[in-house]
């Protein structure tokens, strides 16, 4: 029955053709608070027989990445935008045909509400590429994060305003330290001094531990 065979082949072809759309590059979270350090995660599925060898992600304007998680087996490079922020981040590696990889990073969201469009290009070892740059209803949509004051604050990294007390209320920068204002010689920043103090305290602790250890050391041994 040649007709049946053709129908079966056509069905297979339709399935094969349709499957790439099922495995989209995704970005989470879908919603984030403005001016908040957020942990973003780009999920990259290998969506065809060829292996993914490169993923390039355009960082939306106003997003400030400051920390990157290492994805084992992948090398990361960044290219600056004109204002010196990160413009494009590129990961190179090799993904199993049925594998996926996650690229995670911490970044501050813009202070204005709006939509972040994450344009990404996925390249394969057969020379082909998929450009995830279309609108949400396109076959290859760019991932979108909605920046909204209604979203919960993450404060990823723990340095900023927490999710507690004032919630999404915008923070006021502290006044300059009064000690600094009085000083004749100007200091750099307040936090640099604090960091140095902590570092020094750590060094003293370490040295003290060493001394204790050496004094306890019995003569007979070693």
């Amino acid at each position, binding site marked *: 029955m040649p007709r049946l065979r053709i129908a079966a082949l056509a069905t297979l072809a339709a399935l094969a053709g349709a499957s790439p759309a099922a495995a989209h590059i995704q970005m989470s979270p879908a919603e984030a608070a403005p001016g908040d*350090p957020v942990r973003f995660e780009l999920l990259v599925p290998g969506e065809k027989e060829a292996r993914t060898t490169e993923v390039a992600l355009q960082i939306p304007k106003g997003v400030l990445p400051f920390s990157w998680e290492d994805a084992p087996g992948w090398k990361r490079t960044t290219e600056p935008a004109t204002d010196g*922020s990160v413009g494009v981040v590129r990961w190179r590696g090799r993904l199993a045909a049925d594998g996926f990889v996650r690229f995670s990073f911490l970044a501050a969201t813009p202070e204005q509400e709006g939509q972040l469009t994450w344009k990404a290009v996925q390249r394969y070892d057969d020379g082909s590429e998929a450009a995830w740059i279309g609108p949400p209803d396109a076959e290859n949509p760019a991932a979108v994060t909605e920046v909204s004051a209604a979203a919960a604050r993450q404060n990823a990294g723990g340095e900023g305003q927490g999710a507690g007390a004032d919630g999404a209320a915008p923070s006021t920068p502290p006044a300059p330290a009064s000690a600094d204002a009085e000083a004749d010689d100007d200091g750099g920043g307040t936090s640099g001094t604090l960091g140095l103090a902590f570092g020094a305290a750590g060094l003293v602790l370490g040295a003290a*531990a060493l001394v204790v250890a050496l004094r306890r050391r019995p003569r007979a041994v070693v």
Partner: protein
Amino acid sequence: MQLRRIITPTALGAAAALAVAVPAAAHTELKSTSPAAGATKSRSLGTVTATFTAAIQRGTLKVTAPDGTKVSKGSGGRDPRKVTRVRVALKGGLSAGRYKARWTIRAADGHEQAGSFSFRLR
């Protein structure tokens, strides 16, 4: 056994030192200013800037004259052309003397900091 009595406290001490010292490395710090701290510039100086080691979300910069009056136009802000810099324009007709610039920033990681530097005009 005896060796462990030596190694354990030493390792703990070293770990404590590292644990305490490392967080400071992640912080955004002041890298340079214009004018440089302690520098002397002409009274026609138009702009003051402070540049940091990493991107900042926002910032302010205010400059005061020797008598304490504010001589900067507004509170300054992040430089639209450079994401690591805060800048502010100065008013005209400045007199000679020591000026003080005070900055505040919120780093990309949300850490808020403040500091100051001074320079001379002649």
